[in-house]
């Protein structure tokens, strides 16, 4: 064991971790916002909203993420005529992919709110948007918190797949350092430790929030 390999390359590795966190945070935010729209679309009574949303969700949920990452990397430049760069194309792929999963979380969350709440809102003259924003979503979000945190942990882990298009995120940098220093055991143990710490934070947060909800 030569753990000195880690401090020696710490700056480089932390740079990768920052990139990983950025990728995860942006994918999370974008995926969640798009997921709300898709989740609402999936509950729409209008066919021209319902079918595209449903198709979108089922489509991305039936593909492996790695394929989606490849697609956006190779096909988007083909369509728009110039390369997007690895970071941007990874972000788009993640947002598109994660939105399908968030959409299902949002749908389940909204469906957990009784129809009577919506009727109460409508009966006082509120429109669809105001009813969703003020009555349904605040209640639904509370129910959605645990699955959302779980999805955050998954996204954080998923970002490592961006290595396939050469993005130098955390795990990719571990690999690069290893190919130079030949310290696989130390490096991959360290990588595991970092993932463990971050994911545990997520899992513990999720438990806390769940408990707080039951106590309410």
């Amino acid at each position: 064991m030569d753990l000195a390999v880690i401090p020696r390359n710490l700056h480089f590795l932390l740079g990768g971790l920052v990139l990983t966190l950025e990728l995860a945070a942006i994918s999370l935010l974008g995926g969640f916002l798009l997921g709300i729209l898709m989740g609402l679309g999936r509950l729409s009574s209008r066919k021209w909203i319902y079918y595209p949303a449903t198709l979108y969700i089922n489509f991305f949920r039936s593909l492996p993420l790695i394929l989606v990452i490849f697609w956006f990397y190779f096909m988007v430049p083909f369509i728009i005529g110039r390369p997007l760069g690895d970071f941007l194309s990874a972000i788009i792929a993640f947002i598109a992919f994660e939105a399908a999963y968030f959409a299902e979380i949002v749908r389940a969350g909204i469906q957990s709110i009784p129809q009577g709440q919506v009727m109460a809102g409508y009966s006082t003259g509120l429109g669809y948007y105001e009813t969703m924003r003020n009555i349904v979503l605040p209640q639904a979000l509370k129910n959605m918190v645990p699955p959302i945190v779980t999805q955050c942990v998954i996204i954080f882990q998923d970002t490592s797949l961006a290595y396939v298009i050469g993005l130098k995120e955390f795990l990719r940098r571990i690999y690069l350092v290893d190919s130079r220093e030949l310290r696989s055991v130390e490096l991959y143990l360290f990588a595991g430790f970092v993932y463990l710490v971050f994911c545990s934070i997520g899992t513990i947060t999720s438990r806390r929030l769940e408990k707080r909800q039951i106590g309410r």
Partner: protein
Amino acid sequence: MIQIKNVSKWYGDFQVLRDVNEEVKQGQTVVVCGPSGSGKSTLLRCINGLEPFQHGEIIVDGVSVSDPATNLYRLRTEIGMVFQRFELYPHMTALQNITLAPMKVRKKSRREAADHAMKLLERVGIPEKAHEHPANLSGGQQQRVAIARSLAMEPKIMMFDEPTSALDPEMIKEVLDVMVDLSTGGMTMIVVTHEMGFAREVAEEIIFMDEGSIIERGTDISFFQNPKSPRTKDFLDKILM
């Protein structure tokens, strides 16, 4: 104020409303009763456009509900609705429940909406509960907040869908008192209820529905004393015991 003409409604093949005709004049209180599944709630939801119907016409305050040009959101501000299970927003205080629609729909300031809400809470007898969440209120108190919430839009019509049937007996009176008050104050009301004491006291007309049709109607006295159909008689015997 409300004219219901030849209204029929189907859920798929199942006919929920059969050729319903009814008129409610301004200031009147009409009580609707009938067995479970007879279409009472559906009729109320058709009146404020929460449910579409396939045949007939409903005119509220001169406006046809099924006319595609009708602004249903505007129409609903004229019709308050009170539900069996209260349907208060659990994440808001009583006051916030009441002020939401006036602020969002009528664009009232928070201050103005809150002042009005406090007056309404006084009217239903629970001003001290303004800052409580629904979970901390008894059923009767929740229903009174729900009534105040509907009144906050200053509707011309109030509809009640079995407002006391989820309440413990000792709380029924406090809610009925508020409703009697409204009725004698000149509000136009449609009340689905089996509280026949209430019906006797304030109803100008009582209608009895069965399997989607109105099969009996009468002023209070004629309705109770000599029901024409055996179904009505049966039903009255059961609920009056």
